[in-house]
């Protein structure tokens, strides 16, 4: 099957990723763990842009960037070069942003995603390093603000801006690309996606070979998909009216789910790029080999390994490796219980329950998961009861054994079930008659009555078998 792309959609993405796993900022020694600190407490003369201050390039940041480049199958530049991008904004303390221009640290890479018609390649044009500006905070609401405060804690944080070619053909592909990219970056241990503002997306989109628009201010992957869906609809409507799409920058209003025009291309800034005189080129070509050697296992490789090592199906392998935390969790569980059972319970059950509650795997312990799988495998609880244990832990807390005791979830067998079967058959002669008359459904009803009597602790399949046995023995 080949995806026809009926509207001729072309989507390219620019993603700003904050390298927040670095200990220090891009050009100074300030620490990066400002997220819970008071404003302007993680600053120094350099990241405040005080007169006379000079940048010193964080070598580790360059190493991270190269790591990303290698993971995205990019070419690595021989030596670094930085430029100044000149523009005024109060959050930009130097009046220019130190960034990379015609020599990005990495370029010409590719990422394989799950496309509309199977594996699909998204080319990476380039990824360059730059510094994050500070953050503006309005005193009160924006329209009734008494003033604006500036927090420079974020100023000077290392960013990498990854620019894709316009290779995505649908909003869904864009979202999958973003998910895949985030996943790769987390495997590389270069950023923590849970911190605010760690990944910011701008999207370029055109349809049917027309001019493209750029949508800014997208803060989530879900948001990217929604913004792009809206933009396709808007552009299609314009064409339907016989008009042309104008090349412009649009702002995504997350609350209303619409894009709003910001400015047309003609009004755009002239950034007057020129080489940053305060930074000398850093030769990095020779670093590549060493970094390549220490590159961790990436999602695609781990997915293949899960299939071969644990003998699981590809859908499970994909689900388990699409988030490094889940994959790590799974491997720990699998080292203690049957890996096949673990694959089912982690990917099918636990992940579903977590998603439903908008929780991450951090909300669950490996020990509890191991205990629950052991209970099921040894036949002490039913699968249904095991699901209830998971839900209870997530909703109310507690340990698996306590929950089993409190709720009486141990599987009931033998006499108790026998008695329940006998009782149900005695109490429901009409249903039995219906069954004899050929109504298969009556048997389900009778089994259900047994389950009700045993409060779900019996195994439905064996109840059914016992029921048939009892009918054959005493009622025929």
């Amino acid at each position: 099957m080949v995806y026809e792309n009926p509207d001729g959609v072309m989507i390219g993405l620019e993603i700003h990723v904050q390298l927040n796993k670095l200990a220090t900022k891009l050009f100074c020694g300030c620490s990066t763990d400002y997220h819970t600190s008071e404003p302007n407490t993680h600053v120094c003369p350099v990241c405040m842009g005080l007169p006379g201050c000079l940048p010193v390039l964080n070598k580790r940041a360059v190493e991270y960037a190269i790591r990303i480049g290698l993971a995205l199958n990019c070419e690595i530049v021989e030596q670094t070069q930085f430029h100044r991008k000149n523009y005024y904004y109060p959050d930009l303390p130097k009046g220019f942003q130190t960034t990379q221009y015609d020599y990005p640290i990495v370029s010409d890479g590719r990422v394989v995603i799950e496309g509309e018609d199977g594996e699909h390649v998204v080319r990476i044009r380039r990824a360059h390093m730059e510094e994050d500006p500070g953050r503006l905070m309005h005193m009160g609401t924006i329209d009734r603000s008494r003033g604006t405060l500036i927090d420079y804690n974020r100023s000077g944080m290392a960013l990498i801006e990854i620019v894709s070619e316009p290779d995505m053909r649908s909003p869904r592909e864009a979202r999958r690309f973003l998910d895949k990219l985030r996943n790769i970056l987390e495997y590389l241990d270069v950023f923590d996606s849970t911190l605010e503002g760690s990944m910011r997306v701008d999207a370029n989109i055109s349809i049917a070979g027309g001019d493209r628009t750029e949508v800014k201010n997208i803060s989530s992957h879900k948001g990217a998909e929604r913004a792009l869906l809206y933009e396709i609809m808007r552009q299609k409507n314009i064409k339907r009216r016989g008009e042309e799409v104008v090349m412009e920058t649009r702002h995504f209003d997350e609350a209303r789910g619409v894009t709003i025009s910001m400015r047309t291309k003609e009004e755009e800034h002239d950034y007057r790029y020129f080489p940053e005189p305060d930074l000398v080129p850093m030769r990095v070509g020779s670093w590549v080999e060493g970094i390549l050697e220490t590159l961790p296992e990436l999602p695609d490789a781990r997915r293949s390994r899960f299939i071969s090592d644990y003998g699981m199906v590809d859908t499970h392998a994909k689900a388990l490796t699409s988030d490094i935390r889940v994959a790590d969790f799974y491997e720990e569980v699998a080292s203690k219980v049957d890996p096949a059972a673990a694959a089912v319970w982690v990917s099918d059950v636990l992940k579903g329950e977590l998603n439903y509650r908008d929780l991450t795997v951090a909300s669950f312990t490996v020990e509890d998961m191991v205990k629950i799988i052991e209970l099921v495998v040894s036949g002490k609880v039913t699968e249904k009861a095991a699901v209830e244990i998971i839900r209870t832990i997530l909703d109310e807390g507690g340990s698996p054994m306590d929950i089993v005791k409190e709720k009486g979830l141990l599987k009931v067998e033998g006499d108790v079930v026998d008695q329940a079967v006998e009782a149900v058959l005695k109490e429901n002669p009409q249903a039995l008659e219906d069954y004899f008359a050929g109504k298969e459904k009556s048997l389900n009803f009778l089994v259900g009555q047994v389950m009700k009597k045993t409060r779900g602790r019996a195994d439905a399949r064996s109840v059914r078998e016992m029921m048939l046995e009892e009918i054959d023995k005493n009622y025929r």
Partner: protein
Amino acid sequence: MLEGLSDLKNKIGSSSAEDVVASYLERIEKSDINAFTCIAEDAIDQARKVDSLDIEGPLAGVPIAIKDNISTKGLSTTCSSAILDGYVPPYDAHVIERLRKAGAVIIGKSNMDEFGMGTSTETSTYGPTLNPWDAERVAGGSSGGSAAAVAAGQVPVSLGSDTGGSVRCPAAFCGTVGLKPTYGAVSRYGLVSYANSLEQIGPLANRVEDVAALMDVIGTYDNRDSTCVKHNAGYTDALQDDVEGLKIGVPAEYFGEGIDDNVQKLVWEAIGKFEDMGAEYTKVSMPNTPYALAAYYIIAMSEASSNLARFDGTRYGNRSEGENWHMMASKTRQEKFGAEVKRRILLGTYALSAGYHDKYYLKALKVRTLVKQDFERAFEDVDVLMAPTMPTPAFKIGEKMDDPLSLYLSDVNTVPINLAGVPSISVPCGFSEGLPVGLQVIGNYFDEATILKAAHSFEKNTNHHTKLAPGVV
């Protein structure tokens, strides 16, 4: 002759740093040449600390003037601009850290052209510094205050900065010694940038040996300036009175049109003196010199337009009020920057703009490479180059203020050195109608030793540096 560092050492030893600093402060107070933008209130305290703690640093108790574009913790740093009026840095520049460690007493900040943009210290928001030799004339620039203070005996030594001649020009105009080190020899950390790729901090003094002593203190490697280079120091060790066999190159292009006859004559006499002392000279050609001035101004202004963008009144210094941020920033810059600064920001912005970038900025970079090659070629055959520092002696205050182009032209012999990044020293080589004239000795990259040796030998065998400006005792 004014006191040098070795005289001061004895004096401090026999009396105290406090007495010495107090006597210099008194001279500053009595003077009306406007060499300082501010005096450190704690100067006496710093001196007392030297006395009481018996600090033994190489500059223990030595008062020093610091150009007002070098950041001093707790002491106002304005670049002689209204936009930074009231700005007190929370940190010390690398050179200041080094000076404090060596026991020096930061006595005050010296006047300069606003942000270093000028050749006469006339663009200072605090008014011009007067030349100690003739109060109607400029002290040179942009480090005019640093040179005038030394020439007037208000400090024995000072620091300036040299972007296109800003140490050497005022040194020549005021009859002092001034060194522009090799690019990368002194950390720029804390120097408020005018044109980063061109400028260096440099010392001024009445003797070559004092300049070398300061270099020993400030010329150490600093990892906070990425352009700073690890190199062999030992500046004082280089000072020998011996130029036997020294090969001097004399570039014809530095004696061209616009170079005053008297100045040419004095420089040639100096070269003759070197011959007498055992050196030999040859004429060399540096064919790209005529293009250096234009390239210099394009590069300097381009970098300046970006460097000065941070002065918007938001975070520090001085601001004008406006109804929103844009108006505040724009009014601040409109009202607080002087005319010359605005001119250079505008020209630099223009040179970097889309459509002009290649025609001006990129072309200037190409010229810069050619100028560099001129020097590299010349130093294959000679040890040093000698030329006039300035085309004329100090001109009259106000004479060139309405004609920026003629002011720019006076930098013709100093800017090629900054484009190339080589070191150069200006030493007094005589007087023209009572005004000092400077000889420029240019060296190869990181070969300050040779030019210091040459300048030192010249000083030992002449007496120009012993003459005092009128009224100085």
